[in-house]
């Protein structure tokens, strides 16, 4: 039974990873692409790891998988934040159809 749950989780995780990559290719600028890659890839990878934990049962492998999942949950949004801020600082523009850019004022104020 736990095997089946594990395989379902792994399948769903891989699907989310694939959809995240499709979003990564289709979206128009860095910031939208980051949205797709951080959200889908974070959840996809966590589901993969939880699936592995389910298949192997409670033990060394499950403990490592859960710890990896926790650290991905902590670090992945932080990395996205760093990339977004870094690309804005190095002059990557928002998509031309973007509605609003409040951050421009802040950057102007600082410089």
């Amino acid at each position, binding site marked *: 039974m736990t095997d089946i749950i594990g395989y379902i989780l792994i399948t769903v995780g891989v699907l989310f990873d694939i959809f995240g990559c499709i979003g990564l290719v289709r979206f128009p600028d860095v910031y*939208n692409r*980051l*949205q797709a890659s951080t959200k889908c890839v974070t959840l996809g990878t966590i589901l993969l790891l939880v699936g592995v934990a389910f298949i192997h049962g409670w033990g060394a492998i499950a403990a490592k998988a859960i710890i990896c999942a926790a650290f991905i949950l902590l670090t992945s949004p932080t990395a996205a934040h760093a990339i*977004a801020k870094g690309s804005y600082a190095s002059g990557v523009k*928002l998509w031309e159809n973007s509605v*609003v850019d409040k951050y421009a004022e*802040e950057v102007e104020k600082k410089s």
Partner: protein
Amino acid sequence: MRRLIYFVVALIIWILLTWPFTNEGVDAQVIIAGLLASAVVAFLFHEILPKEHHVFTSPVRIFWLLVYLPVFFYYIMKANLDVVYRALHPAMPIKPGIVKIKTSLKTDSGITALANSITLTPGTLTVDLTDDGFLYVHWINVKSTDVEQATRLIAQRFEWFLKRIFE
């Protein structure tokens, strides 16, 4: 006190990672190495670790953290279905922009948790934060450019929990 808490946390992570429980009992070598490593980490690096260590010792905060996790996972699932919908839709219905929101959280860990929660939930990505409590958020489908309104739509559902966990 703070060093002791981080020592215990580091030791738990060490034990989970190395898993010293074998069929013959516990492997003492691994535990001793873990004790030494955790002591070094706790004594040398306790200054750069988060200041809000009281989260680990207060049962009320841990309770709210455990309540927060399922809520958080619900929003992550919602966020993912939202992104999948936008990525697969032929017309790609996005309306992106960077808006400004205000947070009433004060502690570093609280603001970090809020920024990370915003990044992982529907259509929003934290770009920067200022010292006076404003966050700049990239929103894939801008519903409001007003600071108050955007705060209510993006941050409020998390702040309620995070205030109970970290402040």
